[in-house]
């Protein structure tokens, strides 16, 4: 059987994910953030770097056994994986945001036009949220910078992922409502988790202890 394959999300979570793995004794010296090698031998564990949204796919389909990935990615992709440990870092929130004072106008528009336009990079999270709240919206999917949408008249509201809220403020937007909060998770492919529990359990135990001690 191949060594346990551990997928890591490139981007904001990578440094802290590497720190966590280093702390529990995984050799991550071969990984260079921004480097070109994407599959790295880490002793008993093989490390794979990938885009955050692909990580969920890797783990769901069993191409990787374990991964550290944000809950935001799991919520958006709906990937069927096992969430084992809340690692606590990488905190952010899915929010509905709009320019301040737009509420009055939005409600008027909703009455007359029957729907609101919501721009987002996260159409699944946005759609689920507004359906649960029974609000009719048109989701406009954008590939980046949803916060510009209300400024240029692309949409009334946005659904976005925020950590500090600075970007929203800089674009004159305010949080209307919080949808869900997110932190980094240790996740596993379900079949691999059951089949290779003996190898995975110590990783879970050490990462849980590491997360609890922070």
């Amino acid at each position, binding site marked *: 059987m191949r060594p346990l394959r551990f997928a890591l999300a490139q981007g904001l979570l990578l440094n802290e994910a590497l720190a966590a793995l280093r702390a529990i004794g995984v050799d991550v010296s071969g990984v260079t953030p921004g480097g070109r090698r994407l599959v790295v031998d880490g002793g008993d564990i093989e490390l794979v770097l990938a885009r955050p949204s692909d990580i969920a*796919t890797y783990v769901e389909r069993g191409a990787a056994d374990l991964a550290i990935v944000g809950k935001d990615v799991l919520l958006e992709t709906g990937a069927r*994986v096992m*969430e*084992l*440990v*809340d690692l606590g870092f990488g905190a952010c929130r899915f929010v509905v945001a709009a320019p301040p004072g737009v509420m009055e106008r939005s409600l008027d528009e909703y009455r007359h036009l029957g729907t609101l336009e919501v721009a987002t990079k996260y159409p699944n999270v946005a759609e689920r949220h507004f359906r649960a709240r029974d609000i009719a919206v048109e989701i406009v999917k954008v590939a980046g910078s949803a916060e510009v949408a209300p400024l240029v008249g692309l949409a009334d509201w946005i659904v976005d992922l925020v950590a500090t809220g600075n970007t929203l403020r800089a674009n004159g937007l305010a949080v209307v409502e919080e949808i869900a909060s997110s932190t980094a998770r240790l996740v596993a492919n379900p079949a691999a988790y*059951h089949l290779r*529990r003996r190898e995975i359990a110590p990783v879970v135990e050490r990462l849980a202890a590491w997360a609890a001690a922070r």
Partner: protein
Amino acid sequence: MNQQSAIRPPRGFRDILPTEARELGVIEQTLAEVFADSGFTPLHPPLLEYGAADSAKRRRIQFLDSDGSLVALRPDLTTSVARLVGGRYRDMTGVLRLSYIAPVFREEPAMSGGSREVLQAGVELIGGDGALADAEILALLVESLARCGLPICESTVQVGNIQLVSGLFAALTEAARFEVVDALRQGDIAGGLRRAREAGMPLDELERAGRALTGVEGDTDGAEARELCRVIELARERWPGNVERWGVPNAALVPALPYYTGIVFEAIHPDAGVIASGGRYDLLIGAFGTPRPAIGFAIDVLQLHRALFADAWRPRRQRPLLLLRASADERATMRCAAALSAGGMAVALGDVAERAGRAVIEAEVIDERRVKLADGRVAEARALGAEIDS
């Protein structure tokens, strides 16, 4: 409809061509024999069942029937069997042993590589209760896989129990416990444990639950865990197999399907993932009439095939096929073919381009009793079958 969509099946569906179909046929035949050897009788529920409003959540493929009612391609067979037992066997209180080999259909998001048609082979034991029934069905699953040629190792079969999982959170109120188990069904152990902590579960019990769900397998204690081990031991007595200790007790095994009430199990292969799953569902038939205890399993035949293929399995060889080249005398050609068949040969007139891995022998008709083989030898048509077999 553009030309491309006319020559390809819809997303998530595919053609199964002869090489694969032959191998699947061998697996299906073996499974049908194993099921019959334990007294299970095949039945065929319909392809369509009535649909439901929450189809997105349950991943059903649904559409409107011509009379306007909402119908669904059956998403699993256990529910169909429960429905028909609740109706057609309403007055029969004895034990039923039913089996099926049939496709089920599930919605999968586009571009995810997921198949929407799944071939299932399974059994349902209705009216059977207690550790013996649990162990018998668990053993039958392992026997089914083993007789198809799957090597069974210690961790191939994982066994959990919904009661055991529920019992780990006995300190919580019913509502909180329901939320925790619901999170576990979705694979969210971290979320389930957090919910339990927020609901005021004592720390030592929380730790015990955490150990059972994320610790090394079998790391469980208490009466329910002992009972689980006893069922596995009983099942090993029924199907000793060739590994001494198959079956791993696993509290973290909480299937997504909501109807399980007791023992649950999965067979897992390192390359193919989950190839079979099952468990006890004592309340499901009650939804269609009188409640009856029931337990069953379903094998994903295509995943089993994938696992067998990964382990270098190939189906046993078929008898070779004789490709018979006709002579100018058409009547003599047909009589010669008849003589070959009577002698036990498999015969096709002309050529076959798609041989699906089957060995062929070529021969030419001489007259109604004799053929000339490719090496120039002349053989008696009626005797050739016996000659090839020996």
